[in-house]
């Protein structure tokens, strides 16, 4: 019988990063480790080359709009060691967010970063060919941002489809900026 993939907690990964790059880790939790945006590339290079973490397979990059800041989440795994972990970067700037690109380390980041730029408007500096992937050049706005298409007053995205929902019961007010 085969064993399941080991999930490395953020603390474990943070310890490993701090041993070589002190100060790069901003925060670590059970589920992920947060790295400073300006030290992202050297951290990723370390994770990729490190014998113990061996993060040679970048499974997914995804962006999350948190209203006042952006999160970029990297799901990294090692095929040889059968383990995985998550890395996050926070971008405080909401109008013109920008972080360094990791496409020099992983070829697989190339298309995924273009997708995030296209739909969420996060610029990846150092990306060799950063342009829209699905939408055309000149498309107004970035659809996956939460404030895309400001709706007329009183309309709350998502909620009007559920007239019996009480927004107070789940803190729904907080979702609308």
């Amino acid at each position: 019988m085969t064993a399941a993939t080991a999930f490395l907690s953020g603390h474990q990964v943070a310890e490993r990063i701090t041993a070589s790059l002190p100060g790069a880790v901003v925060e670590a939790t059970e589920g992920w480790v947060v790295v400073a945006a300006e030290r992202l590339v050297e951290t990723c290079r370390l994770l990729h080359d490190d014998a113990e973490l061996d993060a040679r397979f970048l499974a997914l990059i995804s962006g999350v709009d948190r209203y006042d800041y952006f999160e970029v989440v990297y799901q990294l795994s090692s095929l040889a060691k059968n383990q995985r972990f998550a890395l996050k970067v926070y971008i405080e700037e909401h109008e013109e967010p920008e972080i360094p690109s990791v496409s020099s380390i992983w070829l697989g980041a190339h298309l995924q970063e273009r997708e995030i730029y296209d739909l969420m408007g996060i610029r990846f500096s150092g990306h060799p060919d950063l342009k829209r992937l699905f939408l055309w050049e000149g498309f107004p706005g970035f659809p996956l941002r939460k404030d895309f298409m400001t709706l007329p007053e009183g309309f709350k995205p998502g909620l009007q489809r559920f007239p019996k929902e009480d927004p107070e019961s789940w803190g729904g007010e907080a979702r609308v900026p």
Partner: protein
Amino acid sequence: MSLKTEPLVVNIGPQHPSTHGVFRLRVTLDGERIIDAEMIVGYLHRSIEKLAEERTWTQNIPFTDRMDYLAAMTGNLAYCSAVEKLAGIEVPERAQYLRVIFAELQRIASHAMANGTFINDCGAWQTPLMHMFREREKILDLFEMTCGARLTLNYMRIGGVAFDIPDEFMPALEELMDELPDRIAEYEDLLLDNEILLMRGRDVGVLPAEMAINASISGPMLRGSGVAWDIRKADPYAVYDRFEFDIPVGHNGDSFDRFLVRMEEVRQSVRIIRQAMGQLPPGPFCATVPLNVRPPAGEVYSRIESPKGELGYYLVSDGGPTPYRYKVRPPSLINLSALKQMMIGTSISDAVVTLGSIDINVGEIDR
């Protein structure tokens, strides 16, 4: 005398039979050698990830059918198991087995389509494709028998499956499982020594293992390059840890190897289905789950082995009735990461073969 040549730009697609959808490939040619290749996608973009943020967790299941429409079952399974992981829902054993049976049937159907169109792209116009469709048709009949749909199935639910199998399902499946190994042997007889297919597929679109890992490539493409990585084995979901099966791998990482890997995977899927049929327990086919599931605030990345590769869902919940973020890891898109590297230096006629062997699905690329 020296001849001055100028690079020529050729658009393959968006309307071209070998692109399997509305996919455009812009290649720059020097003579008939490809010196640059660029993919242009988005013709089928429906912004499913944005739409999903406006619908409840259960209402989002039909979207998964419409991404990879040739493998709707595995799309259902990937999404439902991600939500279950996030909400901590226990799935009954019978549902787990049914999910495995249907996911493997879907894999056979998808691989039949992939291999059929691959041979089509190699020049054997339509006849082999129709042979592959014969098997696929029987699987679609089984789907129709169970859930009424053939393509956009919407069969799985959060907590299990929508319907139990009807009485006539098992005899029909039994018959198909008896038939399939002979059919695969027949195809191998016809195709594996076929000189034309070997010349078109061997050493075309070579992808070294090192580059495959670096480019996040997964599924039959990664295995074709010689990396024995299968999420069903490495990180078993559903009840895959109870079945015995092998991971077929290629050696050269060329188009023909990817074709062979898919052929062999069909055989392994038959093995899995046979074991699952024998072990199928009685019991409920769906857990008792509220219609409007609300996973607690948190996030999850869950992945399964779809016919095309690692199909993952990154879901973020804020405790509300709809997902806060619904992100798909589409294997079809990410498998194209090394497209340029695979194509440069080959001839224009090989571009079609290389693309065919990647097995893309534009519904999943564009979402």
